[in-house]
């Protein structure tokens, strides 16, 4: 027993929720000093609304990053999905189920392409998904000169309705997150994802089909990007190719890493990611309420992300020294 630790050691996820609480307290104090109230309904709504879009993207991103992969194409997939949704709906409420199915099919296919090229052709995921993003960008820029399609009022509800202060989109995002947590904890392929991310060679020698695992992770990541596209369509009322200019993929990666998932794979989880998304959303809301210059926001965000990861890194080093990945006692 080391002396500096009183009581049980906090898990990484607990630490991240603690960080989220800390950000809320500090942010709340800063807003209070400015004469506002961070926890006023309008601000809470703003915060929760911000979580949903990045949330969808970050949940899928967590899966691929756990497998030691990466997806830089999610912003483009989301933009493509918003167009597929809006043009398929075409203003008819009856077309909504068809449009949702079409979006999940298209975005799942994009993910499958990413996964197949990465897993079976041995292309680094950075390059695969960058290339896929460029391909989609070229298609969108050529095909759509402006917003297209029309989202019926019923589906726009998905973007705007809320139950109390909680937007429906945020609730759906949390449901997807819960499903993803269950998937990672309780299904075979979920466990395989950790194994593949930890060490692909060892995983393969233990009889895991590493390629298939990676493929599934990428397909699911594509589909969550599709869900983000549906949300974009619901919010804008049309499909918009311009959505990709917002660099959502970098936001999503930042949220995943803030949530304690290792970029090197094999360690982390969706619960942490949700907290990471929430931290970014709280920061954005605080910056907004304090009316900080948008460019200063970028600077502060960059600093916060680096600082947070530096703090996690210290802990992980600690931990690494204590618990080697393959302890002798456990080898069979």
């Amino acid at each position, binding site marked *: 027993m080391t002396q500096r630790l009183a009581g049980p050691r906090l898990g990484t996820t607990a630490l991240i929720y603690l960080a989220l609480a800390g950000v809320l307290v500090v942010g709340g104090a800063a807003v209070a000093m400015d004469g506002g109230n961070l926890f006023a309904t309008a601000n809470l709504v703003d915060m929760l609304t911000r979580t949903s879009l990045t949330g969808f993207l970050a949940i899928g991103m967590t899966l691929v990053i756990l497998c030691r992969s990466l997806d830089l194409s999610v912003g483009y997939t989301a933009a493509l999905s918003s167009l597929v949704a809006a043009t398929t709906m075409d203003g008819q409420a009856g077309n909504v189920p068809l449009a949702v199915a079409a979006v999940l099919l298209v975005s799942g296919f994009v993910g499958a392409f990413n996964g197949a*090229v990465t897993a079976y*052709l*041995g*292309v*680094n995921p*950075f*390059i*695969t998904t*960058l*290339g*896929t*993003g*460029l*391909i*989609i*960008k*070229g*298609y969108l*820029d*050529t095909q759509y000169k402006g917003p297209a399609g029309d989202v019926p009022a019923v589906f726009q509800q998905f973007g705007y309705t809320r139950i109390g202060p909680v937007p429906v989109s945020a609730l759906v995002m949390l449901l997807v997150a819960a499903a993803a947590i269950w998937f990672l904890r309780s299904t075979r392929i979920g466990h395989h994802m950790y194994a593949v991310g930890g060490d692909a060679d060892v995983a393969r020698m233990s009889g895991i089909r590493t390629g298939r695992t990676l493929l599934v992770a990428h397909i699911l990541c594509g589909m969550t990007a599709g869900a983000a596209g549906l949300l974009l369509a619901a919010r804008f009322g049309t499909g918009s190719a311009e959505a990709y200019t917002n660099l959502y993929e*970098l936001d999503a*990666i*930042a949220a995943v*890493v803030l949530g304690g998932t290792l*970029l*090197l794979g094999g360690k982390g989880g969706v619960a942490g990611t949700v907290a990471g998304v929430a931290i970014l959303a709280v920061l954005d809301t605080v910056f907004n309420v304090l009316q900080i*210059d948008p*460019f*200063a*926001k*970028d*600077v*502060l*965000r*960059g*600093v916060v*992300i*680096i600082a947070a*990861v*530096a703090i996690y*890194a*210290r802990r*992980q*080093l600690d931990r690494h020294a204590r618990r080697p990945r393959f302890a002798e006692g456990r080898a069979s």
Partner: protein
Amino acid sequence: MTRARELLARATNPTATVFILLVLVFAAVFAMNPGFFAGPSLMAFLKQAAPLVILAAGQYFVIVSGNFDLSVGALVGAQVVIAARLIDGEESRTVPVLIVMALFGIAVGLVNGLITTALKVQSFITTLGMLLVLYGAIRLWTGGAPTGSLSEAFRVPGRMGIEDVPVLGQIPWALLIMVALGAGAVLLMRTRFGRILLAAGDNERAAALSGARVDTARTLAFVLSGLSATVAGVLIGGFAGVSAQVGDGLEFTVITAVVLGGVVLGGGRGSVLAAMAGALVIEGLFTLFNQMALPATLRPAVQGAIIIAAVAYAARARARPVPTATATPTPS
């Protein structure tokens, strides 16, 4: 027989792939426009390609030692804006401002390197944060749009050259700078420092245990990348002038170039010459697109497809020679 096989093996080696690609791209350019290889147009091409080639050399150092530098695009943009703002049209300020820029490039590289090595933050996150910080800080400083203007002397390296050379017309300074820095990079990789970089990227632990100062070498790699972004900023600013978008997305183009050159993301493999050739391939592709009058909106799609295909081919070539290598010592 064995010689032929050896040649074949050498041709399918990933480093050689980029040179084959280079020949293919330029053969296509030549087929479209036989006048391309006339002195003046070739020199104009090289003048335009020089910044990317120099950036690729800088990025190579970082990648081969096992890291990423996503901040180079933002740094190039920052340097151009800094130059315009500080020089503000005064010829006499050119040299002092160049010194300030060099120091700034070194400082950014040093911060990237120290955060990555001393604080153990993954370089993807460090440099992503740096990208946000630079992007925001520069716009904050200039109030959104770049102000000031460059001096004539500042624009000489990017625009001018040795005039009235027979056959070639003008030999651009940019080309000479590119060749000098390229030669320097090749020589640097043959020194102790270069070997430590490669070793650090290949197996960090082994390198550290054999007494190499891995962290110092990696930090220096980031500094070199920062310096390469500074030189590229001078050339791009001189060639194209000042705008708010300079450097946007350049980091992905550069990383693509390096990977096309057969350098493995994750480090330890690849040559700097091939990385620079990768940059020439990308610039050649852009030229080819121009000559084919390919719609500007479609270019990213074609670029993405070619990148994926090229890297998939190189990955295949890398996987193959392994079994044959063990079977080579047969008597002829």
